């Protein structure tokens, strides 16, 4: 079993929809959580970064962490065709913090 599980999709939604992307993890030591967006053949781009539990909002993006359930989410409001990409979650812990664990990525397609 992988340390981080993520539904690979693809997820297809109409423009303007609210998108929910999720990851679950097994290691309770994870404290720092990241979401990356990756366009085809491009490097992953850091979207959101959160520490411990709670919500963080940045424009149309909201990252949510529920440590008790070992579950993190990324919400995209008013989704746009330009949001079509693969979204990767990543996390690391307090100890061995130079080691990052990635989900397998969810491919999102926002249809005009």
């Amino acid at each position: 079993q992988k340390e981080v599980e993520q539904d690979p999709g693809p997820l297809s939604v109409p423009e303007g929809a609210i998108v929910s992307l999720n990851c679950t993890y097994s290691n309770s030591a994870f404290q720092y959580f990241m979401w990356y967006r990756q366009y085809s053949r491009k490097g992953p781009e850091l979207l959101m970064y959160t520490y411990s539990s709670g919500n963080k909002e940045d424009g149309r993006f909201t990252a949510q962490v529920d440590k008790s359930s070992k579950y993190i989410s990324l919400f995209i409001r008013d989704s746009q065709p330009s949001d079509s990409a693969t979204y990767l979650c990543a996390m690391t812990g307090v100890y061995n913090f130079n080691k990052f664990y990635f989900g397998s990525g969810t491919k999102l397609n926002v249809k005009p």
Partner: protein
Amino acid sequence: AAGVIQSPRHLIKEKRETATLKCYPIPRHDTVYWYQQGPGQDPQFLISFYEKMQSDKGSIPDRFSAQQFSDYHSELNMSSLELGDSALYFCASSQGGQGDTIYFGEGSWLTVV
């Protein structure tokens, strides 16, 4: 803001040849990571360096080696290339402290023919 710089962006090699990829981390970042991403795959961790010393090792083949130099740039050397080595190779860097995150370069696309 300065980002992680990788070179070359694309290269084509024949089987059994050798390739070298270079990575220049974000200024003041002392930790470098190498990832391999095949088509439709998530990035697979290969190896990382902290302060010029290997800090972690993932699924890096024995045919590959890497090092980090005194100016913190890193090179990934791949020998006896196989068709299956064709992939996008990412370098990422971080400040190496607790709570820091990693930033990726645009990747080097290696095609082995």
